[in-house]
């Protein structure tokens, strides 16, 4: 978690849900990819900003936190399928009891985690139930 450049490189994607799209086959990618999985070198990749709405494919309530996420435990981690097609892994904020597969969610800007002894705080996208 504590690598500043590793986080900073993807700031646009993490803050604004910027991914990519292949003009050749029309598939969307988030996290962004520079090589299309269908067309490979014949694909034409362009940036694409996602709307930030989708639904929960599956989820878990994590009790034993990942390093740097201890203060947030327990937290809901989910795989979210964006309306444009691709899926991503993100935390979902809100009442863990109310989470369910198929639940509509939308993206929000939140603190993601803390980076070790340097005290870096990372911000980025999480999701929340769409009706809130």
């Amino acid at each position: 978690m504590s690598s500043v450049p590793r986080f900073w490189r993807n700031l646009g994607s993490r803050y604004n849900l910027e991914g990519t799209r292949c003009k050749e086959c029309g598939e969307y990618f988030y996290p962004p990819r520079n090589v299309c999985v269908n067309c490979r070198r014949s694909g034409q990749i362009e940036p694409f900003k996602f709307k930030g709405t989708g639904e929960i494919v599956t989820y878990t309530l994590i009790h034993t936190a990942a390093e740097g996420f201890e203060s947030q435990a327990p937290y809901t981690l989910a795989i979210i399928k964006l309306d444009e097609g691709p899926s991503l892994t993100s935390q979902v904020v809100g009442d863990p009891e109310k989470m369910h597969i198929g639940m509509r969610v939308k993206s929000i800007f939140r603190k993601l985690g803390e980076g070790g002894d340097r005290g870096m705080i990372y911000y980025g996208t999480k999701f929340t139930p769409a009706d809130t």
Partner: protein
Amino acid sequence: MRDVAIIGVKNTKFGELWEESLRDIVVEAGIGAIEDAGASGKEIDALYVGNMSGGRFVDQEHIGALIADYSGLSKNLHIPATRVEAACASGGLALRQAIMSVASGYSDIVVAAGAEKMTDVGSEEASSALAAAADREWEGMAGATFPGLYAMIAKLHMHRYGTTSEQLAEVAVKNHKNGSFNPIAQYKNIITVDDVLNSIMVADPLHIFDCSPITDGASALVLAPADIAHKYTDTPIYIKATAQASDTIALHDRRDITTLDATVVAAKRAYSMAKLKPKDIDLVEVHDCFTIAEICAIEDLGFAEKGKGGIVTANGETAIGGRIPVNTSGGLKACGHPVGATGIKQAVEVVTQLRGDAGKRQVAGAKYGMTHNVGGSGATAVIHIFSRER
């Protein structure tokens, strides 16, 4: 391509081996396997070592050279030594490299070893090192843990197929029972479904007893061309198939969250290479890093219909004496999971079974055995099929 046989095997004890270093345990396993084969160090043409994260766990890289050196194979013999890494599938992949080296004719006698020394660091550091098998930038940085990823597989499996926490627990109960018959197993205690369900929740629905432990251990095999295997042993065990497949590094990019396509494809390749079907296999060591992983594995390998893995397990079909005994060693859950060693240990178990040397956990009349080793949440799968007869 030449047929390949396994002529020697050895596991160290699996567990918290605080008094021994990484090099100690690999050398113990390697020398033990060479002794078992009745071979001499001078005959060895190459060494492959599966190791996931020496850098994180013991602050040591260049593992191939280290192990060759302390096995007495470097200073005078200068044999080539190669470390192989594919997260938790490092061991299976080391075996595959060794097989290809012998089959191609490049080498004759080859040692395939695997090892991990995980308890030199605390459990938080170990968990963080293991999380590096997933996509650090797009899973880890969102707060994913390994139990968390498999918990999401379990949650969807339960939602879609009605699999229950009790059925998941049955995997752990069976594997602890099998482990109780295995002298090297980390855990030899019998547990109940209630023990699993009452253990602390790590990532819902997975309890701590749904998870494989942190383990030190090493395993080794000696391989030879089938044509000369009988010079070394009366019971060579033959490799009928070696297969490997890849999938997306991140769980969220998979075609289906509850199916490991890498396992499905590698199994298809392996069955085709061996000219065998799932019903021909007498026992299988699968990658049960979590209880749900064993359920998915037996489905994806063709031993249970998709969605029925939990029922099949609860019915006792995967127990020793059942239709298809799964993880007679105790699996990753009870035997332990020193990540780089696991793929080799699985092969040691199958060879031991096919030789008829498995004692109280012996599968009667076993002729064909399979190993299934997975890296990460399913980005790498390595499958081998072994036979008593050439």
